[in-house]
């Protein structure tokens, strides 16, 4: 087998050194009657690289590829152009096949990257510190609520109706078992977010208010008043950002008073990948750092006084603190964090702003065109590169109708909120720099058809 270096001769020599007559003897702790004799049933035998590649390519061709068609999906995962150098660099064996940097003297590459990543995330979010990544935005969101609970010693979280419904589901799943209570609601097809009503819901039991920026319908709201309201009641403001590119053009939540900012980093460097692996971003204030989940890279010096980096404050983590750890996370999303960091380095502040402006300009133009379609209404007053339309018809069938025309024309709220009548005509459309003019024409005509 091409991945196995031992030859039969090697195996014999080694058994001799070991003093065993057969490999099976080494498995003697496994009860005889349970030991499988031959290769396990029901599975094929080894296959050549060529035939495996054939099989996997055949499967891949059964999917409609975003890059091959007019594509306008968002809602937590966004298609952006990723420079070729990003993928080249993350495939360097020294990054790809390294482990968690537990031996810092020979892991400075990974450690410095994480330190730079943390700084980039903190600055993007307008926060003081960020960690070395979480699994994805949704789990980071739950961890933020848990952390707010530890900081405030309270167990009630008030959740904005604008938070991604899948994120809400994840939080509900966890809350069921941790005994936290979550106040949630479904969004309405209104021009503005629910921040005002949220402020009213905060009380002295509230650990945190959780809002998405921009929200699931693409709406943008000022966080400052909400932050004040929360702080006034001793609660924290948790802001969730699913589209980091938005922060190239919008004030970062940290600067508007958010205490914990978490989000999805997929937009920058990672790619769609049918939902994973992605990279969770997690940032907060210095004073909360010891309540923070996840790994942290920190600066130090070596025996010669040279600057170097190590994993630090691990007394928060499971491998030291065990049941008292701030989280059970171990393996996080290192390589995706690297991809994020490389792409962000290529962009730089100016590039990120330019990219954001391009996204916003195109989205604005598309919103204008689509809302001109008879019966179609633009819900949002404000948006970045994603907005919600109310169609004259149910949106879910409309999306399928567009697929028939070879157009991936947005995400229907019917998919995200099954059974919620009030939302069934809602269609969320994301427009990024990857949408060509021809793509936009195709969307317009497909939607015009489907909206009839």
């Amino acid at each position, binding site marked *: *087998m091409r991945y196995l270096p031992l030859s039969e001769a090697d195996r014999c020599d080694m058994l001799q050194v070991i003093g065993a007559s057969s490999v099976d003897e080494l498995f003697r702790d496994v009860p005889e009657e349970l030991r499988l004799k031959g290769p396990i049933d029901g599975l094929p035998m080894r296959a050549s690289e060529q035939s495996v590649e054939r099989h996997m390519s055949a499967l891949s061709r059964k999917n409609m590829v975003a890059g091959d068609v007019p594509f306008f999906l968002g809602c937590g995962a966004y298609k952006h152009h990723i420079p070729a150098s990003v993928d080249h660099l993350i495939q360097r064996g020294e990054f790809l096949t390294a482990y968690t940097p537990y031996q810092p003297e020979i892991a400075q590459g990974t450690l410095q990257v994480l330190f730079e990543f943390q700084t980039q995330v903190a600055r993007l979010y307008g926060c003081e510190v960020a960690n070395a990544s979480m699994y994805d935005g949704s789990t980071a969101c739950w961890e933020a609520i848990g952390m707010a609970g530890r900081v405030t010693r309270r167990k009630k979280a008030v959740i904005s109706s604008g938070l991604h419904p899948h994120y809400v589901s994840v939080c509900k799943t966890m809350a069921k078992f941790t005994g936290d209570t979550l106040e949630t609601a479904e969004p309405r097809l209104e021009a503005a977010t629910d921040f005002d009503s949220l402020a009213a819901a905060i009380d002295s039991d509230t650990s945190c208010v959780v809002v998405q920026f921009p929200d699931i319908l693409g709406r*943008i709201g000022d966080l400052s008043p909400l932050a004040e309201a929360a702080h006034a009641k001793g609660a924290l403001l948790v802001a969730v950002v699913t589209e980091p590119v938005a922060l190239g053009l919008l004030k970062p939540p940290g600067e508007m008073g958010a205490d914990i900012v978490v989000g999805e980093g997929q937009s920058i460097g990672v790619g769609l990948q049918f939902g994973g692996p992605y990279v969770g971003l997690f940032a907060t204030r210095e004073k909360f750092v010891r309540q923070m989940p996840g790994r942290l890279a920190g600066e130090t010096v070596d025996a010669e006084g040279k600057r170097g980096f190590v994993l630090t404050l691990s007394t928060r983590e499971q491998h030291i603190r065990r049941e008292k750890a701030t989280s059970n996370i171990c393996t996080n999303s290192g390589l995706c964090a690297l991809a994020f960091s490389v792409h962000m380095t290529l962009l730089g502040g100016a590039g990120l702003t330019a990219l954001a402006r391009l996204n916003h300009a195109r989205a604005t133009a598309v919103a204008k065109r689509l809302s001109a379609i008879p019966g179609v209404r633009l819900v949002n007053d404000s948006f970045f590169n994603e907005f919600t339309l109310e169609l004259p018809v149910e949106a879910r069938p409309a999306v399928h109708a567009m697929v028939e025309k070879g157009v991936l024309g947005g995400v229907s709220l019917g998919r995200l909120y099954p059974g919620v009548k009030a939302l069934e005509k809602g269609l969320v459309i994301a427009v990024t720099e990857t949408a060509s003019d021809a793509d936009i024409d195709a969307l317009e005509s497909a939607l015009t058809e489907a909206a009839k």
Partner: protein
Amino acid sequence: MTSPNPTGWRPAAPEPEIASAATTTGNRALMLEEPLLFEIGRTDRTGIDIDHVDCDPARLAGLERGTVDLPGLSEPETVRHYTRLSRQNYAIDLGLFPLGSCTMKHNPRLNEKVARLPGFADVHPLQPQETVQGALQVINELAFWLLDLTGMYGVGMSPKAGAHGELCGLLCIRAALEARGDAREVVLVPESAHGTNPATAAFCGYRVENIPATKEGRVDLDALKGRLGPDVAAVMITNPNTCGLFEPEMKAISDAVHAAGGFVYCDGANFNAIVGKVRPGDLGIDAMHINLHKTFSTPHGGGGPGSGPVVVSEALAPFGPIPYAARYVDGTYKLVEEESAGEEHPQTFGRMTAFHGQMGMFTRALAYMLSHGADGLKQVAEDAVLNANYILRSLEDVLDAPFAFSGPCMHEAIFSDKGFAAGFSTLDVAKALIDEGFHPMTMYFPLVVHGAMLIEPTETESKAGLDQFIAALRGIVEKAKAGDPDLKAAPVHAPRRRLDETLAARKPVLAYQTPAPDGAGAAPLAGGG
């Protein structure tokens, strides 16, 4: 028996004394220093050309941002920055990476290629199902392999790593108990367990109690039985365990736990040792996570991403997470999520991540499984165990192997620091291995062995490679026993000498601070405490 260079080849001359030639750049030929991005980048510099458009802020709710304080680099500078940094890393591609419990095996490049096929890499998680049938089929095929290899009843594909899998398993257990109105509070965990086990249990609201180990390094069955009772929700066992030993009494343990009304969670991080040799399903296990990034070779990437599908017994299957990919008789696939869960999966504990798990890892793992096939995977376990025992027996004469007497090990060999000269520790041995060009073994884990050195070679190491490692480690251990002060200096050839971890924790600097005008360098963060 072993030689530092089994190929017979040696450097034609001994390494001489080189008077260190300090360089003005700090570089040492191909060992290059690299400043921080923040020291060389500039906010107005970019490595990406984007046409400038004027955009009207009317839609931005008056929240427009000023310049974003993120340094950028041109593409050539970027490629260099990260290429130079990468060269300061050790990795599987460079040599032996015997980190016990981490299964650092070869990562085939076919898997990287396959994962990047546009049909997998460029597909949105919320695309209509008729446009992602191939993706759903991958998930379904991988699930089939996992079920067949483990002999379990169902599998949850959502978990994003092993610890997330543990969470998934315990949530199933807790949901099952609640479904029968049985509110148990305790989870039993062996002292030797990985930190994620107790952390996960606590995360799910359980009280954690330890189970002791026998001097053979196994779970103390009697102690366990003694503790079982109506308050015990589950027992978390790692098998093969973190001492690299199979739990021969596993079935008995399971039966005892079940008899007491509890469930058995198995930490499957070490599945590589037994894949194709024995099926966890036959051991009475109720739930087990599988680290695809270990047993099935998806790359570790310097700390993730991973993937931790959880296989479960019939008793737990109804409670598994959504969404999942179901196959229908007509050969089509359907995603069961909130919408249809009502009918098809009513007792699910719910969603544990936004989308469908680690698709990018599924494609890699499936390519890996198809490549090995049933016969190859059995060989994987056998070679992994063979390599570990070869190391165990080749070193037990110089290193204390606390459990060697009780027979062969599984996929990893464990040693203690017994017999080292006063003041010499496992750490010194590890750092000396770095100079020899190897990654050290896992140190000080599990906690049950003093100065533990846990060595997991995996099946993708050649005998020649192991012989070189054994000889080098042997030499180092002899120095540790003799108390050779050189060991304390190690590593001397790495990009950095030993790093001051205490300083890092005492004055945490977690983000780059632009130096004060006087160039005082990065100021420490208060960072609490």
